[in-house]
């Protein structure tokens, strides 16, 4: 059939098809943009509406008003009287989880992949099983156990849970990335008289830096974004995190939703900043070991 067509017609058809493909791609792009940003836009819409009790139901804020952000900043509403303290708690939780996950995960993966421990696969398998486990299923026994450990209403109980759930991923990723570092480096350091601890500190850690950043960001975001364990394990106003504080609005009789959404927007800023700043490491964390063939 194509033989019958003159080159001119064929070229025009090809151009037409290319134009249609491009138009479809742009249409899909616009749809994805709206789809992704709609819930985010809704947060801003609600936070900027000063009339909290009677929302007008408009598509954009009738008179944008930053007073709810100012109120959160100054903590002048009883449900957010300790907002900055709780923000610091969230930060503490995230950073402690990050540090411990990187430390414990790197130590374990060094032992498993560089020191070639016999039967080490047992530990790797248990790590894989923990990684696969849906963590919400452990929440109820976890609360009971934290009572026994005397850690109820302590940030450290949440840190312990988050570290326990994040290290398996750290071990798997670091194990995978570690394969790129030649064993000859360890061997020659050993010959020069370095102890395993020195090899870990001077060779392993510096060379693993990109993977360690990926693991650290993963642990930080896991702890920051997780909700269930923080809600169950932290009860007092002094010890609770922003995530728990946000939920308190639902239990209250008044409903200043604009304050709640302002808190939610502020709470989302650190993950967004981390995402834009360290996107490369986060993506690399997935592709270097992540679920990849």
């Amino acid at each position, binding site marked *: 059939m194509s033989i019958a067509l003159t080159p001119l017609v064929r070229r025009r058809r090809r151009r037409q098809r290319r134009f249609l493909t491009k138009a479809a791609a742009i249409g899909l792009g616009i749809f994805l943009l709206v789809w992704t940003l709609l819930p985010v836009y809704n947060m801003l819409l609600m936070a900027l509406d000063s009339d909290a009790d009677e929302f007008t139901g408009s598509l954009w804020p009738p008179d944008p008003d930053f007073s709810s952000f100012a109120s959160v900043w100054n903590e002048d509403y009883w449900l957010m009287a300790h907002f900055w303290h709780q923000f610091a708690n969230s930060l503490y939780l995230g950073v402690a989880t990050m540090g411990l996950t990187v430390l414990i995960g790197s130590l374990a993966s060094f032992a498993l992949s560089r020191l070639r421990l016999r039967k080490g696969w047992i530990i790797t398998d248990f790590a*894989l099983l923990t990684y696969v486990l849906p963590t919400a299923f452990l929440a*109820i*026994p976890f609360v009971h*156990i934290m009572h026994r450990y005397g850690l109820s209403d302590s940030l450290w109980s949440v840190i312990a849970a988050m570290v326990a759930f994040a290290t398996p991923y750290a071990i798997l990723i670091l194990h995978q990335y570690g394969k790129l570092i030649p064993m000859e480096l360890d061997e020659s350091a050993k010959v020069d008289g370095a102890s395993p601890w020195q090899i870990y500190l001077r060779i392993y850690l510096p060379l693993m830096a990109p993977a360690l950043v990926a693991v650290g960001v993963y642990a930080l975001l896991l702890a920051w974004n997780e*909700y269930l364990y923080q809600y169950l394990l932290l009860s007092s106003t002094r010890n609770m995190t922003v995530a728990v504080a946000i939920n308190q609005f639902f239990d209250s009789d008044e409903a200043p939703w604009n304050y709640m959404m302002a808190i939610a927007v502020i709470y989302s800023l650190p993950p967004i900043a981390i995402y834009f700043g360290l996107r490369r490491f986060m993506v690399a964390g997935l592709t270097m070991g992540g679920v990849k063939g």
Partner: protein
Amino acid sequence: MSSTQQVLTFGRSIVAEESRRPRWHIRLQGSDTSWAIAFLIPYVAIFVAFVAYPVVFGLWMGASPTLYGLLLSDPRYVTTAINTLLFVAIGVNVKMFLAFLLSGFFMNRSWWVRSLLVIYLLPWALPGLVVFTSIHFMLVTQWGLLDSLWRAVTGDDGPLFLVSTAMAMTANIVAYIWKWMPFWTLIFLAARMSIPQDIYDAAEIDGASGYRRLIYVTFPLMANIYLICTLLSCVWTLGDFPTVYFVSSGAPARTTDVLATYGFHEAFDFGYPNLGVAAMMSALPLLIPLVILLMRRVRATGVQL
């Protein structure tokens, strides 16, 4: 193996070491093992105290058979179990299939697609609590954003999303897809990019282009990773808590609960922790085969999780 001996061995020159390699190797193996054990102690301690113990404790809490009789006699539990199955079966499969298709779209490396990818991945980084709460408020009648959009387009009041069980469940599933599709798109995108271009070139010569390329080249090469990701996502989604807890909150009248939220309410609102654990453990007959299948696929294909 005395310490002085070790110091002496360490102090020797490399040339001397080379000649005595076997003995040196054997001797260090022993000390390596003790170092390895020392390095592993923190992880093993964390694992035993905060993973193994809760698991065993949970199994013990949910061990009594009478609990399961109680569960089955609760009509809410039966609804919950069906909801969970629907949530996993529809949510995971639709999400995975769309993520697979979209990963093809994002293979386009023009500047605007790349910038779109950055924005598109945002839900992955945002806290579930925040975005699901926002989606919940979008669905509220009278003033929710979706209601307003509906009114702007049709002039009528929007549907009562959270009053109908079917619509509330759909909302849960759509919100779940919104949150997790970007993550899996990224995974599939990475897998697609690792397919060498020459395979496509060879297929092109054999006459495979357009959709045939997708069916006969891309999909067979990604079948393993697609299957493994789907299994993994099924396991995680079986225990999904925040989506339903925030989006529909079980509304209307606790008919859209899934296992995790049902167990949560039994344990912490009604004060029956054992029943809550039993509800979650009732997922084990599905969870265990999925995990075994997943582990075997991982072993067989060498795909790294």
